[in-house]
């Protein structure tokens, strides 16, 4: 155990910090769930890609830097420290990217990763259906093979970023006789294909962050099939699962939020009557730190050639509940001013983005498998409790 950074890790941090200082836009971008903001964020992805900072863990030939997971964590720490824009292509770079690396053919990697890295193609995800939410194996949306094409019919819902995105990836039923998790395939679909209808759904903040997608005889080349036909479930559940989880919600995000919470608390503490706030602030800071420690521990193990254990299923519960607590505490510190949309008042510095973050935090325990489902997984797979 050696909890010091190596000189090269420290040097890497300095390099990231310097680049971000020179490139992060001074003015906050509009939300990527607006048409204007989406394009601003696409430009930012292009800026990142131009400096080879788009996805530092990717190999150099795909615009990355071949970094290991520890360097990835350092990059994220600096990224959040710099207040850099959110990643509009997170479905692509954090979820699909690693899966493509593992299961894609060279031609697929060449075709999709390059455009993903450069920000030319922004990705949406298309897992859930109206009757396949927590129970994803109930997927019915069909993709019938016709020569070297698939013909897709059906519906997806809660597709994040689908309103403005260029492509969606998801699971489709390619064997009409199959049931449950058999007979599903992992397919990449251009959202400008004839027969695709995207109907935006407004989220809690009033912006169309996700959408329904309707497929009416949508023809997709079988070049876009990732992995084997009818093998989609295994790919979706693949061992890359954790790494993807680690990349999607790296601890720096919560550490940065809890640092800001402490700053807000320092300013407001003498006006606060609720004594439990002090405890909440301490706990938030501690838990954000614990999430970082746990992530570094896992990353160290992976870098040393080890494997992810079932205990990683605890992560999602921990960070999503922490995120809610951080924002609840911040709103408590703001008191009656907390409900005000910051852009509608002149003096909004202290209001920051707490309200926005609070709204978003409500989704954490729901998406990517509800926390109730996660608790079942922990009880059954990690602790070995009986299914029936």
């Amino acid at each position, binding site marked *: *155990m*050696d*909890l*010091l*950074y*190596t000189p090269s*890790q*420290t040097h890497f*941090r300095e390099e990231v910090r310097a680049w971000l200082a020179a490139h992060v836009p001074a003015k906050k971008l509009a939300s990527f769930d607006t048409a204007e903001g989406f394009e601003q964020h696409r430009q930012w992805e292009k800026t990142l890609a131009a400096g080879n900072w788009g996805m530092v863990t990717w190999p150099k030939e795909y615009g990355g830097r071949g970094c290991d997971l*520890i360097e990835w964590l350092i990059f*994220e*720490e*600096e990224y*959040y*420290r710099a207040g850099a824009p959110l990643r509009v292509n997170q479905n692509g770079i954090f979820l699909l990217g690693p899966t493509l690396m593992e299961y894609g053919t060279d031609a697929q990697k060449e075709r999709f990763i390059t455009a993903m890295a450069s920000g030319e193609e922004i990705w949406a995800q298309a897992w859930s259906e109206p009757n396949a939410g927590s129970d994803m194996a109930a997927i019915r949306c069909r993709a019938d093979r016709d020569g070297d094409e698939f013909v897709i019919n059906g519906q997806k819902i809660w597709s994040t970023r689908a309103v403005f995105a260029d492509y969606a990836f998801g699971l489709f039923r390619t064997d009409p006789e199959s049931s449950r998790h058999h007979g599903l395939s992992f397919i990449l679909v251009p959202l400008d294909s004839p027969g695709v209808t995207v109907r935006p759904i407004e989220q809690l903040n009033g912006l169309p962050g996700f959408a329904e997608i309707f497929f009416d005889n949508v023809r997709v080349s079988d070049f876009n099939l990732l992995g084997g036909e009818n093998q989609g479930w295994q790919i979706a559940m693949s061992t890359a699962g954790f790494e993807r989880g680690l990349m999607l919600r790296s601890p*720096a995000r919560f*550490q*940065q939020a809890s*640092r800001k919470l*402490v700053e807000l*608390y*320092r300013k407001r503490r003498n006006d606060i009557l609720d004594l439990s706030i*002090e*405890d909440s*602030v*301490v*706990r938030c*800071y*501690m*838990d954000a*730190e*614990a*999430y*970082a*420690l*746990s992530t*570094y*521990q896992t*990353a*160290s*193990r992976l870098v*040393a050639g*080890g494997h992810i254990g079932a*205990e990683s299923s*605890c992560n999602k*519960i*921990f960070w999503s509940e922490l995120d809610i607590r951080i924002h609840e505490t911040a709103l408590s510190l703001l008191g009656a001013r907390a409900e005000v949309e910051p852009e509608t008042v002149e003096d909004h510095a202290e209001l920051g983005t707490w309200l926005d973050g609070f709204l978003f935090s409500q989704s954490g325990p729901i998406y990517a498998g509800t926390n*109730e489902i996660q*608790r*079942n997984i*922990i*009880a*059954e797979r*990690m*602790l*070995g*409790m*009986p*299914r*029936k």
Partner: protein
Amino acid sequence: MDFTFTDDQLAFRDSVQSMLENEVTTTSIRERWTSDSGENADMLAMLNEMGMSSLLVPESCGGLGMDLVDFVLLAEACGKAALPESIVEDAVVAGGLLADLLQLGTNTDQVQELLGAVAVGEARVGCAHIINPYSNFAQQKDWMLLANGNDVHLVPRSELKFTALKSVDPSRRLQKIDWTPSRKTRVADGEVGAGLQRATLNRGALAAAAQLLGLAQAMVQQAVDYASTREQFGKAIGTNQAVKHLMADCAVQIEFAKPAVYRAAYTVGVAPQRADWAVSHAKTAAGAAAELSARNATQVHGAMGYTWECDLHIWVKRAWALAKEWGDAGFHKNRIHEWLLQPNALLGPEFTFGKRYIDNSDSAAA
């Protein structure tokens, strides 16, 4: 940056753990409850043989000269076994303070000789601290390290008067110690003494935190086993989500307390001057995980969980005691709170690890 244990460290943990699993049966623990000393002499001999007493003793005194990162997994294993003997506190807290004294060069001959005797199991030294009103198994120690104001004293048993108290945990043997400080027994004073006591508190809290981690895991395991076999309505009660989720909640807290405890072990060894925050985090997180596990494991056992006969309370009561010994949640959260309020505290993701964290160069220039 490497937050892993070595294969040797893990193998040592495994061998200590399997010895404890075989030897520390619940029957043998219950036998201790009715014996005079509350200790098992064979167990003390076995622990010595495995190196538990010599591991942290400096090589110059005949010990193995290993560090707290080597020891923390063993402490966790002792908690898992609900080991009644106070080997963890003796080795980490008393041993740590003696090693500090050796390094300071005070009473070198006496301290060196004593550490040598500890390493071979010929002397037993305990350590009390003002934060704890009573001292566990103090009467069985040949020497006690005691505080009087800033002063630290090393006092032979013959000069101590003990009053026994009963703990809710029948495995513990609490004693109130009365003694008269004298020049003769004083081994440190002033700022030096105060510093030693601060370090002692951190080592004690770390020792408790590591054991709490082990206790928590053992309680969850017992509740999971019980829920997997106990049937109601024609099926195992563990098939019910309400029961599963009680256990999953414990598992989440335990998983995120672990790295906090391991980081604290590293920090106490490498940067003791910066250890307060790491130790307080570890003790708070491990204490909360153990208390929740105690509560939920009892609940899962139903009426059996409320009986003297069911073995679960061996672990539950230890968790209740250790969660409050060496600083309760209030004490440790307060230390974290004070640190968070320091205007120059280094907060944020870039300071979780690294030289700045270690070096104590508290400048806001980042």
